[in-house]
């Protein structure tokens, strides 16, 4: 079937197209060039006056894995306020802060998103992450495997194993967990909490292993680079949420020595200690450092006001944050000498000074970082806000007067502590398309996604241009996933299953010999049972794996 999308204004940063009127042809799930000679269009969509972008990609969203399911179980009252009814084509479920898997897929698609990446796949919990994501319809998905507090890596660093050995272990773990990237959370800190350390600075040693976060970051960032993984090491840094942590973040940027590094939900790591409340914005300094250091990419982790739930691998910081739990119930877990998690419900309030300033810090960061290819639009769903708030966030970025109107309503002391009112920048449609499409695909290393040139998979979103950008991005006219029309007028009309994106870096098979001994001695499962096989993803006939090339390899 040949589909033609006629006359829309195309925003395709991957091809350098910025709003030009262009026709797009779709055949067999992919975008194709206009056929030569005589041809018959089976279905044509008149997109005059419409805005066309590729499907949006959320490069950091907690959509699969144990902590998310703990968050769901913890909050029945939140679900009760947002029941989702079954229809002939969609399953029932629940929404708001941590939606059920089916609703996650539908609501992302209804906003024009066609892919989401779970940033904290614990190796030992990777099966669950993939099983949950397998029940998210429409979206493509993938995960970054969480390392850095796993005993095996820490003992390698203590023993001063060479980089090659670390690379092999990282590659093995990525393959075993079916990952497309590597994440580190509070490097070494999750482990340190289990030894009763309550904080861990960048150069502070884990009391058992004698290893510092800086050393862990260096080892993992080097491994990612040397293995040819496109996605840079994905870093949730030390001291999340601690006033003054901007210095840790600046140190982390300097300390990585030019290696590619992605600093995630940087808003939570951009705090100073100035002012009457000893809490201030470090966004300007952080943005300056990001602008200067081209090896650094960031996503923001914007907070938006209202009830949500925070779910993180950072058991150390989540334990400390439990005193802010609202409602007052929370969970932490120590997990398998591998990782941990903490789940704390939060209600961000615009009349709370800290929350109000967190809101402003996130927006300052967005507006002060120059290069939209190196900054990504996230709320760290659900930690800063549920992903369903993205259209509102886009309006805040694109509409200065709206932004200033909201700013005028927040805690007055927070208004005094932010430069937001003086920042004139408004994001353009092309910049939004970079952050949420082309840039994200490039950052993750997705081949044939995130662009509208021929050869790409036909993940396409069509909006009606509207000066109210929230309304515009809330309700796309059409969303195509792999060439199939899945959403019309902001409602799912057809459901399908996306693929799971992975990379398969090579490793020296001898790494498994040591690991097998290690598993037998210390862990609770056999190495052979730990590794996730391809058929676990594909055997139900819905899932599939898409393997992306490594850097330097011949695609």
């Amino acid at each position: 079937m040949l589909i033609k999308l006629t006359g829309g204004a195309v925003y395709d940063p991957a091809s350098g197209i910025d709003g030009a009127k262009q026709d797009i042809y779709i055949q067999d799930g992919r975008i194709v060039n206009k056929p030569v000679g005589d041809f018959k269009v089976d279905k044509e969509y008149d997109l005059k006056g419409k805005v066309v972008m590729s499907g949006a990609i959320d490069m950091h969203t907690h959509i699969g894995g144990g902590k998310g399911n703990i968050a769901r179980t913890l909050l029945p009252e939140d679900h009760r306020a947002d029941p989702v009814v079954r229809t002939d084509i969609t399953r029932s479920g629940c929404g708001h802060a941590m939606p059920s898997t089916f609703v996650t897929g539908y609501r992302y698609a209804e906003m024009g998103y066609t892919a989401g990446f779970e940033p904290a796949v614990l190796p030992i919990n990777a099966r669950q992450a993939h099983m949950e994501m397998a029940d998210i319809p429409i979206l493509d998905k993938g995960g970054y495997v969480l390392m850095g507090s796993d005993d095996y890596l820490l003992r390698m660093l203590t023993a001063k194993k060479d980089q090659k050995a670390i690379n092999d272990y990282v590659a093995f773990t990525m393959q075993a967990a079916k990952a497309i990237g590597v994440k580190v959370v509070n490097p070494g800190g999750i482990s340190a909490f289990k030894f009763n350390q309550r904080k861990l600075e960048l150069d502070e040693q884990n009391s058992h292993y004698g290893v510092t976060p800086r050393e862990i970051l260096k080892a993992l960032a080097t491994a990612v680079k040397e293995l040819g993984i496109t996605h840079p090491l994905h870093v949730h840094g030390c001291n999340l949420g601690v006033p003054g942590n901007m210095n840790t973040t600046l140190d982390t940027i300097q300390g990585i020595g030019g290696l590619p590094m992605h600093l995630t939900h940087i808003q939570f790591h951009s705090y100073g200690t100035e002012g009457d409340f000893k809490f201030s914005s470090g966004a300007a300094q952080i943005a300056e450092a990001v602008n200067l250091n081209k090896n650094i990419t960031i996503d923001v982790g914007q907070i938006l006001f209202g009830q949500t739930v925070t779910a993180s691998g950072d058991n150390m910081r989540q334990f400390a944050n439990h005193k802010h739990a609202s409602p007052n119930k929370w969970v932490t877990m120590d997990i398998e000498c591998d990782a941990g998690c903490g789940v704390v419900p939060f209600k961000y309030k615009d009349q709370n000074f800290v929350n109000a300033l967190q809101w402003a810090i996130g927006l300052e960061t967005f507006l002060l970082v120059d290069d939209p290819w190196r900054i990504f639009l996230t709320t760290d769903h659900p930690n800063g806000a549920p992903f369903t708030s993205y259209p509102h966030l886009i309006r805040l970025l694109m509409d200065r007067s709206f932004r200033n109107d909201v700013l005028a309503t927040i805690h007055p002391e927070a208004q005094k502590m932010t430069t937001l009112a003086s920042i004139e920048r408004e994001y353009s449609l092309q910049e939004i398309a970079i952050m949420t499409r082309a840039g994200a695909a490039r950052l993750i290393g997705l081949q044939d996604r995130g662009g509208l040139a021929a050869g790409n998979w036909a993940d396409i979103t069509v909006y009606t241009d509207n000066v109210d950008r929230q309304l515009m991005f809330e309700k796309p006219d059409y969303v195509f996933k792999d060439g199939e029309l899945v959403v019309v007028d902001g409602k799912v009309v057809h459901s399908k299953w996306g693929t799971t994106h992975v990379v398969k870096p090579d490793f020296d098979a001898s790494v498994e010999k040591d690991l097998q001994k290690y598993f037998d001695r210390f862990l609770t499962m056999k190495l052979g049972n730990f590794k996730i096989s391809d058929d676990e993803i594909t055997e139900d006939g819905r899932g599939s794996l898409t393997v992306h090339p490594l850097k330097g390899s011949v695609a």
Partner: protein
Amino acid sequence: MAEITEVPSPFCGIGTDDLCIQVDGASLKVVKNGCAVNTPAFEQAITDTRPRVDGKDVSLAVAVAKAAVLLKNTNQPVIGGCATDVNGMRALLALADRSGAVVDNMNFTGARNNFLALQDSGWMNTTLAEVKNRCDLLLVVGIDLESFSPRFFERYLWNEESMFLDDTGKRQVIYLGKAPSGNSSTSPNGQKAQVFECATEDLPDVVAVLRALVKGNPIRVDSVGGITVADLQEIADKLKAASYSVVTWAAGALAYSQAELTVQTLSEMVKDINNRNARSSGLPLGGKEGDQTANQVCGWTTGYPARTRFSSGYPEYDPYLNDANFLLANGEADVLVWVQAFNAKAIPPVTNLPTIVLGRSGMTFAKEPDVFIPVGTPGIDHAGHAYRMDNVVAIRLKKLRESGLPSTSDVLHAIEQAL
């Protein structure tokens, strides 16, 4: 004859995956690392292979069609048991969504003690590898741990090597409530567990005093539930002095009314210890016959644990009103579907309602159900996934033999298609 090694078990809850099983046609023999729970569960012979309608052998297609007829146009179907693997639960929830059923895991009334505590105040918990490598004090509350999990101590406490303890034999084990039935809890050095017995229904008082002592609150009695406050003070002191204490309980064993408050007191006590600059974690026992699996899959599919109804067109959780036994007793249901792929002895509640059973081969009934479909057991007859007690690790179950029995998922999917 083949021998399959590294076989994971869905039966014991603690995720043993070192079984060695000899396969001879359809018969299995556990030749290494069996236990009183796993060996009989794996070795049970296949007796039924054909579905029955009204007691007569029929083809699978006929049984599925009959099940669909019984489900069609009902007002309130109830799907009980819910003992199967991840794919089985997926299909079960799809059928429930389609038919507006109530879904109720058969162990939920026990597990409810945990869910109510979790949903009211939360907890700080741990997993088995942390126990194995870190735990220097295990407090066992209200359960005979070794009859619950025969290999718990061998695998997770008396392991020869651990990452962070020089001598695992020096770990301390304290029983509060129930005494151990055997000697598994005695360390290889011969150090016996300390046992402080009390009646199960006295546990709320005993645990409340223990928590008060951890917090340093004054206690004005000398003993509680027959245990002296001095003994409880000693336990409290040990909990606070340990490097990494672990407090374990089995929600289903706390068989008295409002036992969720005991779980909550234990969980809050663990938080208290952590707030006093020591590490401690909880470890709820469970994970047998798919109970964690049911709650996990229902959790991501609906947002709620596996006592949830779909009769309004969307999921509604109620830990009391959606109890299958309650609904049957009150005449609120009009058809029962019972799913139990692991345990042939776990038969459906007796009811006069039309009853469809997807059961492990060998189920015998006081009253023959309208439809009985013997299904394969996950981890024996087909591959699958099941959750361990600690709720973090999903084990990959293996297919051990070619029995021809369909999976729960295949059958439920076929019934849904036929509706």
